[in-house]
């Protein structure tokens, strides 16, 4: 275990470092959102084909990226918990799940709001939305495992398996659904962003993606802190019971 991992293993030390880093992260988040939103609404063009609705891309795509990114992080944390038995890894995985699920929901909802003006219906089973839907199920399953067991150690052990099996499934599902979609796509397909993205649209997208990532980092640090508090409370209560 590298020394940086060892440092972060101590919950109290983690809390102190998180408390130091958080104000900066929060400031950076606010700045990125401000810059991203300005570019999204005032400094980027409407699309030649889609009109103003292309601006939904700046909240839809970052949400989708985050949904995927967070699941991968969850699986990584589960792997670290499994292999190195790092004490905070399970807490990191558990606390990431609701955040990732929220981003996944946003990807689906904003995708739907983008689809209605574009395709005329609130929901379309295109490759992207279908894969996102399956990802949502993966998140819900993972969260359900933590809820299903009273013993947090048992829940953690099972959740690790679920996260790792799930992450292996993601590329397979993506590949399958993309392939399935090519069978059912009509000949002239309205690509969501066109073949190559123009710089005037790329910058708002990247800035919003950065803002989303920073926001997630802030929330995750806080959420891990909450998990540490939950453990402390449980440990203290158990000690009290034993002491009697």
């Amino acid at each position, binding site marked *: 275990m590298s020394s940086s991992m060892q440092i972060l293993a101590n919950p109290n030390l983690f809390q102190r470092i998180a408390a130091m880093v958080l104000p900066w992260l929060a400031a950076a988040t606010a700045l990125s959102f401000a810059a991203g939103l300005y570019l999204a609404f005032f400094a980027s063009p409407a699309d030649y084909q889609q009109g103003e609705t292309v601006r939904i891309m700046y909240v839809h795509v970052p949400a989708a990226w985050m949904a995927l990114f967070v699941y991968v992080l969850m699986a990584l944390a589960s792997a670290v918990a499994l292999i190195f038995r790092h004490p905070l890894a399970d807490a990191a995985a558990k606390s990431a799940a609701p955040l990732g699920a929220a981003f996944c929901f946003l990807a689906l909802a904003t995708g739907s709001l983008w689809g209605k003006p574009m395709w005329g219906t609130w929901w379309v089973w295109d490759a992207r939305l279908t894969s996102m839907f399956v990802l949502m199920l993966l998140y819900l399953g993972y969260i359900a495992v933590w809820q299903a067991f009273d013993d947090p150690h048992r829940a953690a052990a099972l959740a690790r398996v679920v996260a790792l099996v799930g992450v292996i499934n993601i590329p*397979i599902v993506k590949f399958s659904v993309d392939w399935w979609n090519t069978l059912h796509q009509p000949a002239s397909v309205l690509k969501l962003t066109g073949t190559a993205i123009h710089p005037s649209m790329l910058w708002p997208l990247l800035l919003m993606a950065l803002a989303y990532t920073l926001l997630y980092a802030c929330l995750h640090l806080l959420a891990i802190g909450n998990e540490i508090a939950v453990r402390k409370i449980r440990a203290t209560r158990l000690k009290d019971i034993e002491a009697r």
Partner: protein
Amino acid sequence: MTEFTALVKRDIALAFRQGGGMSAGLSFILAFLVMVPLAIGPDQATLSRLAPGLLWLALLLAVLLTAERIFQQDHDDGSLELLSMCPLPLELTCLAKAIAHWISVTLPLAALAAPLGLLLNLGADRIVPVALAMLAGSLSLSFVAAIAGAITAGLRRGGLLVPLLVLPLYVPVLIFGIAASTGNLGPTGNLPSLLVLLALTMITMVLQPWASAAALRAYFR
């Protein structure tokens, strides 16, 4: 090896004697097939078009129903902990139980479902492609069911969790199973999809023993 085959034989015998085998799944498929025309109307053309998809759904859901039973009984009466102390590694024990599930449940259902498609006006020439596709995908269905069954082995209310865990893993099998069912026999028709189903079987075959054993170990602590 003899321990492995003994375990497989034991599970198959248990499944048939306790009615947890294919009979439960078959009843479900028959009930499902009755409800389909009640739900979507008896128009023969519609039924014929939807038949492969509906048959696959029936198969998936029937296998889903039996997933819990793979490990639950042995967990409840303690046999699972005893099995874990056997010289046979826990991973192979889990593999044996998954294979026993395949032989006693998924394989017979996969073979029977396609002919039952006649009830949904499945063209007689489509029965063989559908059956082939289902047989090709059946083993991975059992492996996936065994992963979920191990995770929920000790849960009272595990039934709620199993569909959520299983369905995302079923999606690739379903997609390529349908593709193989609706294609013509031959290298440009269903063969590529059958090969993908084979690949999925191999992936799940490697994944299942590890995942089931890791999940069961959580119950042994």
